């Protein structure tokens, strides 16, 4: 059925009308994908479109229910990840799969460590090879250190090193750039291109169009678990892809309405935490969206966590209105009117094994107690309107959140915090791993909330998002606020300059910046 762009030689990977369901949930209705050797193929689609499911079928994590799956010209049916790996498929999963207690090198070579005399592991050879890999990726990581304590970005780099070292003929990357900064992304892209030039096939999944257009040769769009279309990247445009993805046109991605800014709500003074951040002073006012920009690892999340009280700090103060918020107590912060949507949805935002209702009601449940009793019925009643307001897609409130797609999970987290009717909403990476459709929705929501007089502190690694949504931008570099820019003075150049602590003229950012403009436009 699919009108696939035909390449001269037969494709390396070919999936057609693949179907996969988990109990009642149909994750993939009819997935098709055809990838040629020597090309980079993008796979895009909204959250829950079935991209990761397809990846996992290719990887041998899941088995398809029906459909065709051909690899290097033959029908295959992988029963385990070992089988797919053995056939020459390397996969970077959306969730990192590192072993924290083992060394970085062992992580890369796990299961296929080079062996020397007497079948002993040859550690020297392994280290040397790891060092070479890191050199190629241009990073400086001690190959002997344990994976424990690596930043998310470094973890992702190890994943990439692992996949590259497999010497696979097909490399699948499920959102490898979600946690990487611009420079690291560029380096990854360079490696990807060189692999392509060696004649390997690559599949690249991302929610960022700039990356797709920068890197990929062809792109396949999916919607609702089904194949929609495949295009040469050169022959298509962002609006066209977006339209295919959401099945309709998306209007303004950054629907920021001018805000009426009121009284200061959050006042942070001289916040300091040794080795993490220093001299952090800022304020957020009612109705204002303040963007916290910076490179990954600059310490923005840490500042937010300290304000909310999940982390401690050494000195300084946090106030809401004129009341001081005691340190190290999320409970007190919530009581003071702070809501915090953390960056790691599955680990911090949600109890994924718990039901939608319990998640939504989890912060407000103290107030749901009637006559000393907290009942499931009360939770359901309280959760339903908020789930409805955010259009959470689930058929019953007792479904576990783990069965939902990333975007839907994010809606549950937002619903949970809006239910507390906060004065200040801190939102860390509001749209990480979220498709354009939902993204626009989230942005619209933020704008609306600001309109209602809620103060919003938004951390984002996506420059367009910061520039598009924030009334004021604070730039963080190495734990310090290096610039405060208002909506008019904030440009990609000024923000990046402050984020890297360089003068704007020294920056060779033009390419990124252009891309940003293109997308925002």
């Amino acid at each position: 059925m699919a009108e696939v762009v035909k390449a001269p030689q037969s494709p390396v990977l070919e999936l057609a009308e693949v179907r996969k369901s988990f109990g009642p949930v149909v994750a993939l209705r009819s997935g098709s994908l055809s990838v040629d050797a020597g090309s980079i193929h993008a796979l895009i689609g909204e959250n829950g479109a079935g991209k990761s499911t397809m990846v996992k079928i290719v990887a041998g994590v899941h088995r398809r229910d029906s459909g065709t799956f051909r690899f290097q010209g033959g029908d295959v049916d992988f029963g385990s990840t070992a089988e797919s790996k053995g056939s020459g498929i390397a996969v970077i999963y959306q969730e990192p799969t590192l072993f924290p207690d083992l060394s970085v090198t062992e992580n890369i070579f796990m299961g296929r460590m080079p062996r020397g005399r007497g079948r002993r592991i040859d550690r020297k050879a392994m280290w040397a090879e790891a060092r070479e890999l890191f050199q190629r990726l241009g990073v400086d990581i001690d190959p002997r250190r344990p994976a424990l304590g690596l930043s998310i970005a470094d973890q992702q780099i190890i994943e990439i090193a692992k996949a590259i070292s497999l010497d696979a003929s097909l490399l699948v990357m499920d959102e490898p750039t979600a946690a990487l900064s611009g420079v690291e992304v560029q380096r990854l892209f360079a490696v990807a291109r060189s692999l392509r030039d060696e004649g390997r096939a690559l599949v690249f999944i991302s929610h960022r169009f700039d990356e797709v257009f920068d890197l990929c040769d062809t792109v396949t769009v999916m919607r609702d678990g089904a194949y929609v279309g495949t295009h040469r990247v050169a022959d298509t445009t962002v609006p066209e892809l977006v339209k295919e993805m959401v099945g309709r046109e998306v209007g303004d991605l950054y629907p920021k309405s001018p805000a009426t800014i009121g009284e200061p709500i959050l006042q942070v003074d001289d916040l300091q935490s040794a080795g993490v951040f220093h001299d952090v002073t800022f304020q957020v006012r009612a109705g204002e969206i303040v963007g916290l920009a910076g490179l990954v690892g600059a310490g923005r999340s840490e500042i937010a966590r300290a304000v909310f009280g999940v982390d401690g700090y050494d000195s300084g103060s946090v106030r809401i209105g004129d009341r001081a918020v005691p340190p190290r107590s999320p409970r007190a912060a919530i009581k003071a009117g702070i809501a915090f949507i953390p960056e790691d949805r599955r680990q911090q935002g949600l109890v994924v094994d718990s039901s939608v209702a319990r998640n939504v009601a989890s912060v407000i449940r103290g107030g749901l107690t009637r006559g000393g009793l907290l009942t499931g019925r009360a939770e359901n009643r309280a959760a339903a309107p908020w789930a409805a307001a955010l259009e959470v897609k689930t058929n019953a409130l007792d479904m576990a959140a783990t069965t939902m797609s990333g975007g839907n999970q994010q809606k549950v987290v937002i619903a949970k915090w809006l239910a507390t009717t906060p004065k200040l909403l801190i939102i860390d990476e509001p749209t990480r791993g979220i498709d354009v459709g939902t993204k626009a929705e989230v942005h619209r929501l933020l704008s609306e909330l600001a309109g209602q007089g809620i103060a919003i502190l938004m951390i984002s690694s996506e420059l367009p998002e910061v520039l598009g949504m924030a009334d004021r931008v604070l730039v963080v570099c190495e734990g310090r606020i290096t610039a405060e820019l208002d909506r008019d003075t904030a440009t990609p150049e000024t923000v990046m300059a402050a984020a890297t602590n360089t003068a704007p003229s020294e920056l060779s950012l033009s390419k990124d910046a252009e891309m940003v403009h293109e997308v925002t436009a």
Partner: protein
Amino acid sequence: MSSHTLTRPPAPAESSASAARRVLGGLLRSRELAVLLVLVLLVVVTTAKSSNFLFGGDGWRDLLVTPSILLLLAAGQTLVIITRNVDLSVGSTLGLTAYLTGKLFIEVPDLPVPLVFLAGLAFGALLGLVNGLLVAFGRVPALVITLGTLMIYRGVFLEWAGSDRINPSDLPAGFLSLGTDQLLTIPVLTIIALVVVAAVGYYLHTSRGGRELYAIGSDPDAAQLFGLPVTRRVLAAFVVCGALAGLAGVFYAARYGSISSNAGRNIELEAVAAAVIGGVAIFGGSGTVWGAAAGAFLLVTIDRALPVLGIPDFWQRAVVGALIIGAVVLDRVLKKRQERRLIEARDQS
């Protein structure tokens, strides 16, 4: 990643001096060494109080031979704990195998001793296999399963043995003398136990399979996603743990000579404690069998040293308890420091 990563070239191959410093630093921070140091200190202090604790003919032998049973159990337990599991049934396995050993000798009095060792290993492996099959294929928590098999194996043992017991006179003298035989003043049982520990340690450190056990314990889900043969490895860990418990049963028979249905009761927590004292993380992924062996040595030696030091029998368990907690706290402190160092290293890079 901070931004100046871009500018700095990858680390040059390090000089031999810094490598030596690394090794030395590693040793000083090593948990195994710390436990060993405590052990040595204890032996020295005790010997100062009563010289035949170390220098008496029996003293030296007992010092080495008494821990050999726990040594085997701790080595097996380490394998299992590293995979983020635990085997509580080892005490029952030990008892059953010890009794089986006695029964074998009663049935076939001139059975060659090596064959009995093999039988013990095989029988223990069989019991371990049951645990392993249930845990690995059932994907259910090992603590629950082995708590169940602890009760089942012990129950079977009691049903089988009833109030029958094996007496030293039922066992051939050649076998019993193994309990005290020495080779270059080192007791034979200790030598066997140390060889086993060395073999397990070598495997864990230098083979793919060994490293995979660590990986499985470090993050079982990732191991599954990664395509490691999780089921097979976990199964193997339980089988080896069972086999070593079986071997410990044969040791028990050789050393103590009399075996009643109480043999090996409640020794499982000691085996876990030995591993924990030796720095094996209870949630898998880290620790060495050397540490566990040192822990076993320490635990047993404390038991023997306290009365010599004049601490009454009754307070021994309190001391052991305090020691376990101390070990866990120490582990925590060391780990915190390592984490901080790693993060600092990352920030400086």
